[in-house]
C-alpha cells in the first residue's frame, strides 16, 4: 500500500471515530453486531448439533469405524490405524453358556480390550433395574459384568461368581446400558462382559468357534478417511468396514426443527440488519452532503472521497462483525455447554470458521447497503458550499440497490442452507412489502378526513403524516418489518415449543418388552394389568428380509446410498395392525378396511430411501416362508413419540402361519421398576428394555434446545427493536425543522407534544396492523410448509400487533424526539438552513 493510501486509511478511521458522536453510527454498529452475533451463534450451534448427532450415531457403533470379521483380524489393520494416530479397541463376541447359582443360560459374551467403547459410554448399576451410573473402564481381570436379564435368570448378585468355560469370574456390576447393543434390539441373548485378557483362560476360543471379531477405530475425519481408503481394498472374505449409520431418527427430527428455527431467527436478524443499515446509511449520506462538498472544495477528488467513505463503512462493518462475532462466540459457548451436558458429549473445540463468516457478514451488510448511500453522496456538487440548496443530482441508484439486494440474497442463501426456508422468508418479505405498501397508501387516504374532525393539535400530527405520503409509507414499512419480526418469532416459537411439550407426554411408555411368545401374550397382558398397566397393546412381529420390490429382486449393492444398502441387507420387523396408530398419519394412499388381505402400509421415509411406491408389490422372506402384498398406503411416523412403530405393517391376519413374537411398550413408575425382575423371572425369554434414561435425555435435550431458541430469539428481538429506533431516528433532522416551524408559528410546547403523540400513535397503529397481517400469513406458511406443525390462526396476534405497535412506536418515537420540543425554534431553523 502506498503512503498516500495508508494515510487515507488512517484519515478514514479518524473520521469514523469522530462520527461516533452522531447517534446513527452507534445504532448501526449495535444493529449489525447483534445480527452478526445471532448469525454466528446459530452457525456455531448448528455445527455442533451436527457434530453431536454424528457422535450419537458413533456411540451406537462404539466407534467412528468398525471393522468386523468371522476370523481373527490381521494385526496389520490395527497397526495401520495406530500409525495414522487413530484410537483403537477390539472385541470378540460369541454365544456361550454361563453358569450361575441357578443353572446355566445361553449368554452373549463380549470380551473387550481396554479403551472400549471408543464412543458412547457403558452404564452400570449395583442391582438389576436399580439406579445406574456411567462406568469407568471395563471389568478387571477375573471379573465380569452381567446385564439385568442374566442376573435375574441365574439369580446372580454383585459379589457372586459366574462360570464361563473353564474360568470363574467375579460379578462386580450389573451392566445397565451398552449403546453398541441398543442399535440392535434383537441381540437377544443376555449379556456378559469380560476383559479381553480373560478370553484365553476360558478355553472357548478354538478353531471353528463362531466368534465375531471387531476392531473399533476413532479419531479425526481425515485420518479416518485415510484409514478407510487403505483398509477397504485389503478386506478379506467375511470382513466388512462400517461407518456411522443413520441413528436416532427421533432425535434428528427434533434437532432438525430446532436448527431450522434457529436458522429462521438468524435469517430475520440479517434481513432486519440490512433494512436498518439501509435506513441509517441513507440518513448518514444526507447528513454528509455538506462534508462531502466541503472536502471536494478542499481539493479531494471524487474517487478519493468515495474511497474514504467506503473505508469508513468497511471499518464500521468490521468493527460490528468483530463485536458480533465475539458475542456470538460467547453465546454459542454457553449454548453448546448446555447441549453437550445432556448429550454426554465431549465437543470438539469450536472452529474459527463461523467467526470469520460473522466478520464477513458484518462487512458485507454495511458496505453493500452503504453503496446506494455512497452513490447519492458522490453526486453532491462541490458548489453546495456556496449554495446550500444544491443536493445530489437525481441519480440512478437502481444498480446500487440491486447490488445490495443481491448481497443480502447471497447472505440468506448461505445462512438458510435450506433453500425452501430461505425462499419462503424472502418471498414472504417481498410480497408482504408490496402488499404493505399498497395497504398503507389505502389506510393513509382517510387520515385527512379524520384530521379535519379533530382539535388542532392532533390534526397537526395527522396532517404531517398524510402530507409526507411516500415517506410515511416507507417509515411504516420499516416499523412493521421490526414488529413483524417480533410477532413472527413469538408466534412460530409458540407453535414449536407447544409441539415439543406435547411430544413426550407424561404417560409416554418407558419400557419395551420384546420376544414375547404367542402363548405368553394373554398371561403377560394380565400380569401388566395387575401392575397398573390396564390396556397394554401387544403387537405381533415377524422378521423378514425384503427380497423384491415390484417384482425386481432387491440387491443391496445396487443402492447408491449407504443407508439404503444397510436397510436392504437387514431384516425388517413386520407387524399386523387393524387401526392406524394415533401417532401415524397416512401421507399417500388409504388405510385398509376390515378384511383386507395381502396389502402393506410403508413408512414414507424408508419408502423414499428404497424407492418403494404406492401399488408396488413387496416380497419378504420370513424365516424361509414367503410373505407378499401390495403397498396401499404410505405413513408418516412420529419416531419421537416413544411408542412402538414399524416400517412395514399389514392388516390383521396377514402374519398368520409365520413365526411371530410379540412386542409391547408400557409405562411403569420408576419406583416400581424393580417388579420387572419378577416379569423376567416368570418369562425368562422376554427381554425388557429400559428407555427411561433415553427419555430423560430427550426431555432435558428439548428443554435445553428451547432455551437455545429463546436466547437466539432475544437477539432477533433486540435487532427488531433497533430497526424501529433507526426508522424513527432517521427522520430526526426533518422533524426538528418541522417542530421549529410549528413553534415559530406560535404552537405551544403542549400542542407540539400532542401533535407528536398523535403522529406516533397513528404510525404505531398502522405499523401494528400491517405487521399483524403479514405475521399471520407468514406464520401459517412456515408452520404448514417448513416446520410441519399444526397451526391455529390466533386472533390475538392482531391485538398484540396493534397494542405493541402503538406502545413501542409511541415510546421510542417520543424518546427519539426528546429535546426537540424544548430546543429554541431558532436553533432548529438555523441548523436546517
Amino acid at each position, binding site marked *: 500500500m502506498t503512503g*498516500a493510501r495508508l*494515510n487515507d486509511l488512517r*484519515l478514514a478511521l479518524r473520521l469514523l471515530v469522530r462520527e461516533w458522536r*452522531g447517534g446513527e453510527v452507534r445504532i448501526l454498529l449495535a444493529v449489525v453486531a447483534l445480527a452478526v452475533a445471532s448469525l454466528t451463534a446459530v452457525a456455531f450451534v448448528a455445527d455442533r448439533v451436527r457434530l453431536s448427532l454424528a457422535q450419537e450415531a458413533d456411540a451406537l457403533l462404539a466407534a467412528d469405524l468398525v471393522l468386523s470379521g468371522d476370523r481373527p483380524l490381521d494385526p496389520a489393520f490395527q497397526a495401520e490405524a495406530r500409525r495414522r494416530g487413530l484410537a483403537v479397541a477390539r472385541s470378540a463376541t460369541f454365544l456361550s453358556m454361563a453358569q450361575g447359582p441357578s443353572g446355566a443360560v445361553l449368554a452373549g459374551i463380549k470380551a473387550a480390550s481396554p479403551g472400549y467403547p471408543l464412543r458412547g459410554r457403558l452404564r452400570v448399576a449395583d442391582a438389576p433395574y436399580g439406579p445406574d451410573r456411567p462406568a469407568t473402564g471395563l471389568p478387571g481381570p477375573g471379573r465380569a459384568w452381567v446385564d439385568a436379564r442374566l442376573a435375574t435368570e441365574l439369580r446372580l448378585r454383585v459379589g457372586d461368581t459366574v462360570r464361563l468355560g473353564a474360568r470363574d469370574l467375579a460379578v462386580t456390576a450389573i451392566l445397565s446400558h451398552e449403546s453398541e447393543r441398543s442399535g440392535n434390539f434383537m441381540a437377544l441373548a443376555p449379556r456378559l462382559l469380560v476383559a479381553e485378557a480373560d478370553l484365553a483362560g476360558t478355553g472357548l476360543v478354538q478353531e471353528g468357534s463362531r466368534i465375531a471379531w471387531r476392531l473399533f477405530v476413532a479419531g479425526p475425519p481425515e485420518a479416518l478417511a485415510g484409514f478407510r481408503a487403505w483398509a477397504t481394498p485389503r478386506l478379506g472374505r467375511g470382513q466388512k468396514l462400517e461407518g456411522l449409520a443413520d441413528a436416532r431418527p427421533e432425535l434428528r427430527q427434533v434437532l432438525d426443527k430446532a436448527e431450522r428455527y434457529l436458522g429462521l431467527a438468524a435469517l430475520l436478524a440479517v434481513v432486519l440488519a440490512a433494512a436498518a443499515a439501509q435506513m441509517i446509511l441513507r440518513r448518514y449520506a444526507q447528513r454528509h452532503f*455538506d462534508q462531502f462538498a466541503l472536502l471536494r472544495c*478542499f*481539493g479531494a477528488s471524487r474517487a478519493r472521497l468515495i474511497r474514504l467513505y467506503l473505508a469508513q463503512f468497511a471499518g464500521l462493518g468490521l468493527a460490528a462483525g468483530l463485536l458480533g462475532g465475539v458475542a456470538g462466540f460467547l453465546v454459542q459457548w454457553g449454548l453448546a455447554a448446555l447441549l453437550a451436558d445432556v448429550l454426554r458429549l465431549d465437543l470438539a473445540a469450536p472452529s474459527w470458521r463461523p467467526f470469520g463468516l460473522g466478520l464477513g457478514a458484518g462487512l458485507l451488510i454495511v458496505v453493500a447497503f452503504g453503496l446506494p448511500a455512497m452513490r447519492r453522496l458522490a453526486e453532491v456538487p462541490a*458548489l453546495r458550499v456556496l449554495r*446550500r440548496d444544491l443536493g445530489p443530482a437525481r441519480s440512478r441508484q437502481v444498480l446500487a440497490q440491486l447490488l445490495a439486494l443481491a448481497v443480502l440474497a447471497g447472505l440468506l442463501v448461505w445462512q438458510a442452507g435450506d433453500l425452501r426456508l430461505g425462499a419462503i422468508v424472502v418471498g414472504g418479505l417481498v410480497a408482504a412489502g408490496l402488499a404493505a405498501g399498497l395497504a398503507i397508501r389505502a389506510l393513509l387516504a382517510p387520515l385527512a378526513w379524520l384530521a379535519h374532525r379533530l382539535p388542532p393539535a392532533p390534526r397537526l400530527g395527522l396532517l404531517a403524516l398524510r402530507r409526507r405520503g411516500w415517506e410515511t409509507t416507507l417509515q411504516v414499512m420499516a416499523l412493521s418489518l421490526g414488529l413483524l419480526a417480533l410477532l413472527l418469532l413469538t408466534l412460530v416459537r409458540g407453535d414449536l415449543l407447544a409441539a415439543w411439550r406435547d411430544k413426550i407426554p407424561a404417560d409416554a411408555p418407558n419400557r419395551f418388552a420384546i420376544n414375547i411368545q404367542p402363548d405368553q401374550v394373554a398371561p403377560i397382558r394380565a400380569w401388566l394389568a395387575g401392575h397398573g398397566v390396564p390396556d397394554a397393546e401387544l403387537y405381533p412381529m415377524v422378521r423378514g428380509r425384503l427380497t423384491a420390490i415390484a417384482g425386481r429382486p432387491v440387491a443391496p449393492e445396487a443402492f447408491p446410498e449407504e443407508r439404503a444398502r444397510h436397510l436392504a441387507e437387514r431384516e425388517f420387523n413386520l407387524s399386523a395392525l387393524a387401526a392406524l396408530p394415533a401417532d401415524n398419519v397416512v401421507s399417500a394412499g388409504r388405510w385398509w378396511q376390515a378384511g383386507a388381505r395381502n396389502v402393506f402400509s410403508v413408512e414414507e421415509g424408508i419408502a423414499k430411501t428404497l424407492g418403494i411406491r404406492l401399488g408396488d408389490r413387496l416380497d419378504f422372506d420370513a424365516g424361509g416362508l414367503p410373505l407378499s402384498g401390495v403397498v396401499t398406503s404410505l405413513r408418516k411416523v412420529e419416531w419421537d413419540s416413544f411408542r412402538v412403530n414399524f416400517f412395514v405393517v399389514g392388516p390383521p391376519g396377514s402374519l398368520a402361519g409365520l413365526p411371530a413374537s410379540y412386542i409391547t411398550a408400557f409405562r411403569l413408575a420408576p419406583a416400581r421398576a424393580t417388579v420387572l425382575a419378577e416379569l423376567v423371572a416368570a418369562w425368562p425369554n422376554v427381554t425388557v428394555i429400559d428407555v427411561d434414561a433415553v427419555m430423560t435425555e430427550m426431555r432435558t435435550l428439548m428443554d435445553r434446545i428451547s432455551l437455545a431458541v429463546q436466547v437466539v430469539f432475544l437477539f432477533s428481538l433486540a435487532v427488531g427493536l433497533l430497526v424501529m429506533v433507526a426508522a424513527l431516528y432517521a427522520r430526526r433532522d426533518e422533524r426538528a425543522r418541522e417542530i421549529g416551524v410549528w413553534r415559530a408559528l406560535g404552537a405551544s410546547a403542549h400542542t407540539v407534544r400532542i401533535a407528536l403523540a398523535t403522529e406516533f400513535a397513528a404510525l404505531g397503529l398502522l405499523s401494528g396492523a400491517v405487521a399483524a397481517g403479514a405475521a399471520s400469513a407468514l406464520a401459517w406458511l412456515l408452520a404448514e410448509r417448513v416446520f410441519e406443525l399444526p397451526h391455529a390462526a390466533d386472533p390475538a396476534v392482531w391485538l398484540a400487533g396493534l397494542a405493541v405497535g402503538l406502545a413501542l412506536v409511541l415510546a421510542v418515537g417520543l424518546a427519539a424526539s426528546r429535546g426537540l420540543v424544548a430546543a429554541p425554534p431558532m436553533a432548529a431553523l438555523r441548523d436546517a438552513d
Partner: protein
Amino acid sequence: MWLGEERLDILAGVSFTVNSGETVAVLGSSGSGKSTLLGLLAGLDTPSTGSVRVDGTDLFGLDEDGRAALRGRGMGFVFQAFQLLPDLSALDNVMLPLELAGAADARERARAQLARVGLARRERHRPGQLSGGEQQRVALARAFAVAPRLLLADEPTGNLDPHTGAQIIDLMLDLNREQGATLIVVSHDPALAARCGRQLRLEGGRLA
C-alpha cells in the same frame, strides 16, 4: 446558464486580473452574480463560455478532479454560513483540510492556528457551542491553516453583527498580510470593501 428554454446570462463580459498578494473586494447587491463569480474563480462551477486562469493554468482546461487538486494545493475558503461540520470539534474542523492534504503535523498546525485566532481554549468545543463570531474565527483558522496562496471569501461578515463583523475583517486581513496570500472577497459590505486594495463592482452580471 440555461433555465428551461430561456438563456439567462448571470455574468457577461466580466474580465479582470488579480496580482499576487493583492486584496480585492467584489461588491454588488443580491442577485448581481457575486457568488456565481466566486464559484467560477474556485472552479466549483463551470461557465458556458470564458476562462479563469490561476497562475497561468486554465481552470476549465482541467477536469473536476484536476480543479479539486488545484484547490487543494493553494486555495483557502471562508463562507458566509461558516460551513463548519457540526459533529466535529473546533480543532477537528481545522485539522480536516490539513489531514486531507496528508500533513503529518496536522494537529500542531491546527492548534497553532486556533491559538492565532484566539480560540486556544475552545478547541474541544463543537460549532453549536460557539457564537457566530467564534465560528467564523474557526473557519478563518481552517482557511489559513493550509497556508493558501489564494483565499476566497464569500460574504464572511454576512451572518454577523457589525461589531463582530469588524473584528472578523481585522483578523482576516491581518492573517492575509502575515501569510502574503492573495485575497478575493465577495461582499455587499462597504466597510469591508474599503479595507481592500481594490474594489470591483458587479451590476446585473457586468463589471461597473
